């Protein structure tokens, strides 16, 4: 058993000179992909959430429709549509851009619902009070609503980062040069699928686990804060 384990690990040591630099580069792409798609999802999600709360019926209908579709269709289908499906129409993205936009568009549907729930949870008296002391709607949102909503929004938002990090792996199917694709390519070349996919799994875990712990901590912190405010009220 121990001998087998030693043999198993020896293969990593043997190949590390070859695999190491490629894997490092791929991790970097995975991180970049996560950050960029999260940024897209946040901006788009906030716009959609505000759109869904808008008094204009057309805007509301469009945003509701977008959110439903984004939440009802797999990210992979959106990625394929963006990367392969738009080529005949003359719209060509490189694999990284398609991956980041696709994941961002998909996650925006969820993030919009998270934002909306957070905003709606703030008592409407807060908004009315802010407006009545002469704040503009934009100021009200920026200084009164959003800071309070953040408490409800932050934990699911952090969760979304973890989900996105894991979902970047499906970008390998549209040939984005990230961790999963690199692992798959190296596995095919070296005929060592077990070693490489386990390595990929361990690396994803190493990236995601600290985030999970932070998310749980933040969740607990936010709950504590809420109990205090309830006490005051």
């Amino acid at each position: 058993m121990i001998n087998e384990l030693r043999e198993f690990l020896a293969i990593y040591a043997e190949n590390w000179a070859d695999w190491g630099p490629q894997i490092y580069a791929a991790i970097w792409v995975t991180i970049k992909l996560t950050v960029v798609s999260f940024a897209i999802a946040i901006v788009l999600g906030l716009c959609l959430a505000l759109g869904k709360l808008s008094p204009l019926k057309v805007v509301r209908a469009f945003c509701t429709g977008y959110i439903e579709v984004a939440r009802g269709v797999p990210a992979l289908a959106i990625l394929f549509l963006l990367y392969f499906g738009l080529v005949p129409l003359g719209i060509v993205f490189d694999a990284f851009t398609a991956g980041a936009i696709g994941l961002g568009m998909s996650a925006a549907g969820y993030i919009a619902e998270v934002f909306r729930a957070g905003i709606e949870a703030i008592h409407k008296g807060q908004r009315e009070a802010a407006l009545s002391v002469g704040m503009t709607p934009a100021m009200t949102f920026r200084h009164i609503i959003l800071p309070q909503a953040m408490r409800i929004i932050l934990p699911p938002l952090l969760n979304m980062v973890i989900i996105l990090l894991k979902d970047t792996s499906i970008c390998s199917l549209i040939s984005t040069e990230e961790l999963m694709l690199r692992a798959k390519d190296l596995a095919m070349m070296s005929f060592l699928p077990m070693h490489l996919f386990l390595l990929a799994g361990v690396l994803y875990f190493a990236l995601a686990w600290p985030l999970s712990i932070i998310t749980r901590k933040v969740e607990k912190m936010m709950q504590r804060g809420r109990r205090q405010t309830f006490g005051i009220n």
Partner: protein
Amino acid sequence: MEDFFQKLMELGGPLLLGAGTTVAITIASLLVAIVLGLSLALIRLLGILPVNWLISTYVEIFRNTPVLAQIFIIYFSLPYLGINIGPFPAAVIGLGLNGGAVLCEVFRAGLNAIHHGQREAALAVGMTPWMSLRYIMLPQTWRITLPPLGNYAIALLKDTAVVSAIAAPEIMFWARNLVTSTFQTTFVYILAALIYFCLSFPLARLVEQFERRQRAWQ
């Protein structure tokens, strides 16, 4: 227009066939996930520390790695140990194990949400621990866990798309095949997305309705 319908018939058939497989994979892995998740959540209640650590480790590992990595390990690495399985069982095992970890947490939260007085009262009136679980705890847990369970089922339905990577013949797999044979790229992928939407949208409305009724009930 006639051309359009002809195209629709020609390309829609295989995609709907794939939809059947998608639904089959979803239901099979949902069953695996529910049985596994509920069992683990219940075993956790026994409070045997080493066992609980094992379960926590399993949950943490499967929740913090991509499902695609899990499926690749199962499908490409098990033959290396002399175990050969087809893409369909590999998909169900991978998604099921992944779902077991998610649902273990869902059921645990559900069981924790029930006041411990309920169990104590059941035991006090002479129920056995098993009866208290069966008639008092689980029915109440079920009501709490149904909405997150429904949301998980929707997420699972969408996650089945990734098993096209190991050539399980579901919607995305057929879509990719159709594209290589017909070059109707845009049309096929839009149609595939539409089929997924038609499958998940009613489910989402059902979950929403249940949540609303539950809120009214509370």
